[in-house]
């Protein structure tokens, strides 16, 4: 029976007069976050902006309601807990909440007036017990009309959050949708609806659904992004169909890269990979993709470079750089700048060591050059290269460190 040990220590409710003297009686602290929430939420956003003062009508109304109802019940609340009550069901809202906190059986059915129901809710909120708050909300959801429930929750933010969680967890999206609408939380409403596209597997249905999302109350910026999402999927479907056909006809090699539901940049990468030199008037032309979706110069450059380098199309890579110089994009601030990093990645990919070193020297990828010489254990070359890097730079220090490193067995 050792097994009961935990339950005892956690659950047992010994009579309070059996407490030992050694027990530290810790003071109660104010955790009343609900009041803050309530007083905040008492204002509708619009009234805030209209500049109503703190004593707004709505606010006073809810305050006085809660106050008076509390006073009404206050005498009963002070009644001592007595066990005989186990068999009769005249528990006050507060006692009911307390019993629920301990996982004891209760019946909520007798709380029929709105006032009682709200007292139950408010006591559960002030007990900070999310489990009980949710239980009361489930009861309220069952026994109150949506309109009344939603209205009352507007001034009870903690309870409202619990209802939203409960609806999300039980995947009752329809009611959640209505709740957001009733609260005027249009963006939450739009996002919730938009999220449904994730569970649509068929790409055509998904595209159609995304199109229907365009009428949702998104913010203007988000709407533009959702529009892009729709346009992108539409285009992906076309490209996929065309490419499949071309593959079957033997005009294109079989592709291993997926395109459906990929991000815009992944799509651009795909187009740079398979359709690099296509005329701009085709859907799969990288330039067309770039213009349709207003992809930044930088982002286009990086993606095209990555795709062409992956294919080892060095002439394309070279062209990209030339173009870049011509546009005057060469000034760099940080020592290891953007272009450098990208270039380094791809120069490092070149298999042939000789070619790699030439490329690296040409583009001044000092790090790669130094590493190659280190790996070749070529002390003379490294010494020579020291003259080509900037005085006092990190590269020079790195070379010096290597040269003085006792553990390297130089070949010369």
């Amino acid at each position, binding site marked *: 029976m050792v097994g009961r040990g935990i339950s005892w220590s956690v659950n047992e409710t010994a009579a309070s007069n059996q407490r030992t003297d050694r*027990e530290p009686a810790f003071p*109660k602290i104010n955790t009343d*976050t609900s009041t803050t929430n309530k007083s905040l939420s008492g204002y509708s956003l619009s009234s805030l902006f209209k500049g109503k003062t703190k004593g707004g009508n709505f606010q006073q109304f809810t305050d006085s309601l809660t106050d008076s109802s509390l006073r009404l019940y206050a005498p009963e609340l002070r009644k001592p807990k007595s066990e005989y009550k186990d068999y009769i069901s005249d528990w006050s809202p507060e006692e009911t909440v307390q019993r629920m906190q301990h996982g004891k059986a209760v019946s909520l059915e007798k709380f029929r007036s709105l006032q009682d129901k709200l007292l139950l809710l408010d006591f559960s909120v002030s007990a*900070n017990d999310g489990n009980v708050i*949710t239980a009361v909300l489930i009861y309220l959801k069952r026994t109150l009309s949506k309109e009344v429930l939603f209205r009352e929750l507007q001034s009870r933010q903690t309870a409202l959050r619990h209802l939203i969680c409960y609806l999300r967890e039980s995947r009752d999206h329809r009611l959640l949708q209505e709740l957001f609408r009733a609260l005027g939380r249009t963006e939450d409403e739009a996002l919730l609806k938009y*999220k449904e596209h994730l569970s649509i597997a068929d790409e055509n249905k998904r595209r159609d659904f995304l199109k229907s999302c365009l009428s949702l109350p998104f913010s203007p910026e988000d709407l533009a*992004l959702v529009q892009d999402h729709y346009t992108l999927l539409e285009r992906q479907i076309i490209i996929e169909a065309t490419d499949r056909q071309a593959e079957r006809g033997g005009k294109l090699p079989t592709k291993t890269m997926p395109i459906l539901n990929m*991000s815009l940049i992944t799509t651009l990468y795909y187009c740079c990979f398979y359709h690099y030199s296509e005329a701009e008037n085709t859907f799969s032309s990288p330039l067309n993709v770039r213009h349709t979706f207003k992809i930044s110069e930088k982002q286009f450059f990086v993606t095209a470079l990555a795709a062409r380098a992956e294919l080892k199309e060095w002439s394309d890579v070279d062209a990209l750089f030339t173009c870049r110089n011509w546009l005057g994009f060469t000034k760099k*601030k940080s020592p290891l700048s953007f272009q450098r*990093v990208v270039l380094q990645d791809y120069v490092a990919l070149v298999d042939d060591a000789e070619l790699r070193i030439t490329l690296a020297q040409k583009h001044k990828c000092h790090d790669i050059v130094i590493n190659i010489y280190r790996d070749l254990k070529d002390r003379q070359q490294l010494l020579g290269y020291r003259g080509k890097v900037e005085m006092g730079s990190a590269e020079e220090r790195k070379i010096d460190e290597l040269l003085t490193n006792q553990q390297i067995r130089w070949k010369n």
Partner: protein
Amino acid sequence: MAHSARRDCPELPDFSLLKTLARDHLIYLLEQLPGKKDLFIEPDLMSPLDRIANVSILKQHEVDKLYKVEYKPVISTSDQLCFLIRPRIQTVKWICDVANADKAAGKCRRYKIIFTPKKFYSCDAVLEEQGIIGDVTTDEWSFYLLPLDDDIISLELPEFFRDNFLAGDQRWVKTAGSALHLIHSLYGPFSKIYGIGRCSKMAYESWREQVAEGEQRAQKAEIGKVFLIDRDVDFVTPLCSQVVYEGLVDDIFRIKCGCVEFGPEVTSSDKSMKVMLNSQDKVFNEIRNEHFSNVFGFLSQKARNLQTAYDKRRGMDIKQMKTFVSEEFKGLKQEHRLLSLHIGASESIMKQKTKQDFQELLKTEHSLLEGFEIRESISFIEEHINRRVSMLESLRLLCLLSITENGLLPKDFRSLKTQFLQSYGVDHLLTFANLRQLGLLVEQQPGEMLTVMESKVGKLVNDKTAGKLTDAFSSLARKSHFRALSRKLNLVPRSDEEYDLRVPRDMAYIFSGAYVPLSCKLVEQVLDRDGWTGLEEVTKLLNGHEFAVTGNNGADSKAKGNAQRIVLVMFLGGCTFSEISALRFLGREKGFRFIVVTTAITNSSRILESLLDNHV
């Protein structure tokens, strides 16, 4: 009571009792269902269960087959099914489906659901709705705490973070209170409790009520002080790259329930290997808190020592050799094995980190923490996004930028958001909504410019701004006042001074000397001052909710000197290994021993992953 200036750290209480209690309770519950039964286990309970009761213990109590809960039709032929689950609606719904499918097929079975640590009313509601109350019996397994190491105890509730801080669902508050109550009844009574954060306050109250209802056995206290802290008090620390060994291993290989799986690249064989990482591993124990730059040196020194120990064999006679083999050899071999594992792990870490330009990344992080060269940092992040380097890394840097800068300028926010969605998918609109709700990634509101300017020029933030609690959109988001806090608490040491990472001088060593973790700094300050006195401006910047309370057993608190130096720090919403390392350092400096209780071990990836919403 004369204390020498340098006191030794007191001994830690023995937490293995927690495991024993949990195991005995589980056995008791299994015995309540006599006869052979199949056990279905929630996937995220598998590892914790493994630490408490292994398969043979389960088999001893007539568990026949073990299954993972996978939301698929069951293939079991047993006539008793037992489900060990977290109280989640979807899991209960699945069990209802199983029971209803059996009914429809005319199959008669007994079902038992064991919820852990507690059943929620919402689960009961599902059972009722699905019409299977009566067919299914339920129970609760009071498994609140899993000791992961001598000084780390976890509730293994990663969802605590999202539920509580993003959604504002308080259902785990009581669980936190009960966990604290369990520790209190076994290792208390506590004499002093400090805390900061809304959830901490509520957990304290829940604990206090449970204490008042229960009975404290008269016992010698083993833990004197308690510090409760909400994760949202400090988001900066868990979002920084970890560079202390244990944290790095967690960031790269993901430590799960105190156990890590090293792949073939580490084990230098063709097999993966699961390794327990705790103080029992002597090699690990010596490097876990070290800055990574020291680890290689340490390991190679260790390897040389090992070689010397092996070399002792030479010139031994038979008798000596026999003693050597029976006494030392096994230990040496074990050490050898561990050593090569950790060397393998370190090499693998090095390889990965060089590949992703780790130095540049750290430089950017440090700039953000210092508030210098913000433009350069922004373009670094932009490049990161453009190149589609890890999505989580990009998101992490964006959040770090937002918290340290108190939000992004609208122009930057829009451009970075658009580029992010272009690179990683528009679905992440939902992720951005979550991040905004939590206050992790926000746009500066026009009216806030002044505040930002103020904090930039080092003025005090006035009452009105700091006191502004939740924003108008009813989220729990809080404004970050990182710069002001950083100045007040001196979190970012001056960068012109050399920082010797081999001889750390403060907790900043866990971030290469660039930043003292805010969470741990608060613990240090409050313990130093025995409360929040003198920290008024800091707590104001942290949105308040601080408390410090004393139990009325002050009379004999002097007699329990040692217990007073054992401090339990409870993180609500998770803590990182780096924070644990920092607290261990603080403990050594001040003669304390810290016990970390956390809802789960976390790191930047876990935090951000819990906020991603680009999946069903």
